[in-house]
């Protein structure tokens, strides 16, 4: 177990390096800078000064090595757009917002998705199952920007229950629409997997034994079937995270949430390449850590799994 964790941890560094190298060279091969599109073209001398300030006139290998060294010390360099804040400062300011929103969305997805999937499996092939399947397909098929804008139209504009945008922390009413919009995707994934894996364990011997003991249907599902059915659900954690990040790109922008996903989208349209590069690195690290945690959690959920 310890060697497995160590080996997996050792893999994180080279994987990150590959991601970093690829992104670095793609970003640096991308022509143009934010100064190109300014309405009054800058004098050539000013451009050269700017390039010197950002070390853009160094040879590429030196820029690469410098950036890597600084990134290891937590310094992701200056942002092109933002004068007063460095990339690291932008990341530290915006990441917590997105993490809160992401965790709330996943919590919502778990609380809604797993019971919905369980209900559909227990009431298999009844109208409850069909309604649950429809909800699931809607959650999986609709993109987040459709979900969030329709939620705003219905909940904010038509019914007037919630604000139309903004962010005042996760415990404010403004957090509800973004959480719903992002969380509906993972909720649908959880529901689908819970349903199919519950149906799969349904006919197995240990369920028949539990039934033979005289346990109630509820106890069988909750205490016996669920425990086994949830293992495949954990495997989709990676998909869930991707879903949450992708959802946040749109939801944070449309609803005006000052999170890191919005910074990412803004860095693309503003050609703020250092910010873009820094945020891709943060996402890569996040994804790798979550994948590692997921792989390790199998051992707790299913004692038959051995790590080698």
């Amino acid at each position: 177990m310890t060697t497995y964790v160590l080996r997996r941890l050792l893999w994180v560094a080279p994987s990150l390096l590959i991601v970093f190298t690829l992104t670095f060279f793609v970003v640096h091969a991308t022509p143009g800078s934010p100064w190109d599109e300014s309405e009054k073209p800058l004098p050539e001398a000013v451009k050269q000064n700017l390039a010197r300030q950002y070390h853009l006139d160094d040879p590429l290998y030196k820029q690469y090595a410098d950036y890597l060294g600084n990134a290891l010390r937590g310094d992701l360099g200056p942002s092109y757009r933002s004068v007063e804040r460095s990339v690291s400062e932008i990341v530290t300011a915006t990441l917590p917002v997105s993490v809160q929103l992401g965790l709330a969305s996943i919590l919502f997805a778990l609380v809604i998705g797993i019971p919905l999937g369980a209900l559909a499996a227990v009431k298999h092939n009844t109208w409850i199952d069909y309604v649950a399947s429809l909800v699931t397909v809607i959650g999986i098929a609709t993109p987040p920007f459709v979900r969030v804008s329709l939620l705003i139209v219905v909940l904010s504009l038509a019914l007037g229950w919630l604000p139309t945008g903004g962010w005042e922390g996760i415990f404010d009413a403004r957090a509800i629409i973004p959480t719903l919009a992002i969380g509906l995707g993972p909720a649908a994934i959880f529901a689908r997997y819970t349903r199919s894996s519950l149906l799969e364990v349904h006919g197995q011997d240990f369920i028949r034994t539990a039934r033979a003991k005289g346990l109630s249907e509820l106890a069988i599902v909750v205490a016996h079937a669920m425990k086994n059915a949830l293992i495949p659900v954990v495997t989709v954690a990676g998909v869930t995270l991707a879903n949450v990040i992708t959802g946040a790109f749109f939801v944070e922008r449309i609803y005006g949430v000052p999170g890191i996903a919005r910074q990412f989208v803004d860095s693309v349209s503003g050609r703020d390449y250092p910010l873009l590069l820094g945020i891709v690195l943060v996402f890569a690290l996040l994804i790798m850590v979550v994948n590692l945690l997921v792989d390790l959690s199998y051992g707790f959920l299913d004692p038959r799994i051995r790590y080698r």
Partner: protein
Amino acid sequence: MTNAEGYAPFASPKAVLAAPLRRPTGLWRDAWRRLARNRAAVVSLVYIVVLVFVALFASAIAPYAFQAQDLEATDLGPSATHLFGTDNLGRDELSRLVYGSRISLAVALVDVLIVLAVGVPLGLAAGFFGRWVDTLVMRTVDVLLAFPSLLLVIVVITYLRAVLDQPEGPLLAVVGALDGATGGLLGVFIALGLVSWLTVARLVRGQVLSLKEKEFVEAARMVGATNRRIMTRHLLPNTLAPIIVAATFGIPGAIAAEAGLSFLGLGVRPPFPSWGILIAEGVRTMRAFPHELVFPASVLAITLICFNFLGDGLRDALDPRLKLD
């Protein structure tokens, strides 16, 4: 028949007894029959066929040109002259949605072509040849799949946009000109092409790994079939069903990705009426004129839902092993 384990469970015992001399049916006929029994899939298929016709005959169906402005009729609600209303430049929403279907379906078509032209051959080669081919293809797939595909697509399309805006060299100039003529669609195709083949390549490789150990491949080899013949005549037909299912499920993802990119201003450029652009414009005016958002958002959502239902139906019809009911 040998296919009893896989394809029989839908027939009730009574039906089997009632038709003991029924002609043996092939996989495709069976699949079609099962699909036709799935109401959600049939309704979705009808919707998609209608959508294809709308896209093909857009110019005949759309009541107005998609870019025709009428500055005396801006932001109108739905009415007899403008069924879905007009936008802030007085352009007919319905006509823009009708023309927009061309963009979405072109993306769907190209996505399927990339899956067939790149994903299937690479998966086939990786599974069949193994060794370094397998390592190379599958490690690439693993690395690219480890990240949210939209993240990769956005990084790549940012690069493409910048390169194609000021193309250097004759090749890039041609690509850039094509991209400009298609309103930015070519860039979207390239960026989506990078990620759309991944899952199918992995799927085909998995299938081939188990299929190539089967007796019929051994038999084919014994009678002197070449590698090429084994792959195209023996392995490929046996992986066709899962490929069709996976390709169908890939379509809504690609359509949503194009709409999302266009929504962010990275995909198709105005005035080309991508549904993503219509939704972005709708979001801008939703506080005053919510119908300008609700119509395109609903059409996109319904289209994606239908492709998903069709994919579900095809999976149940074609791939009995994945069937749970």
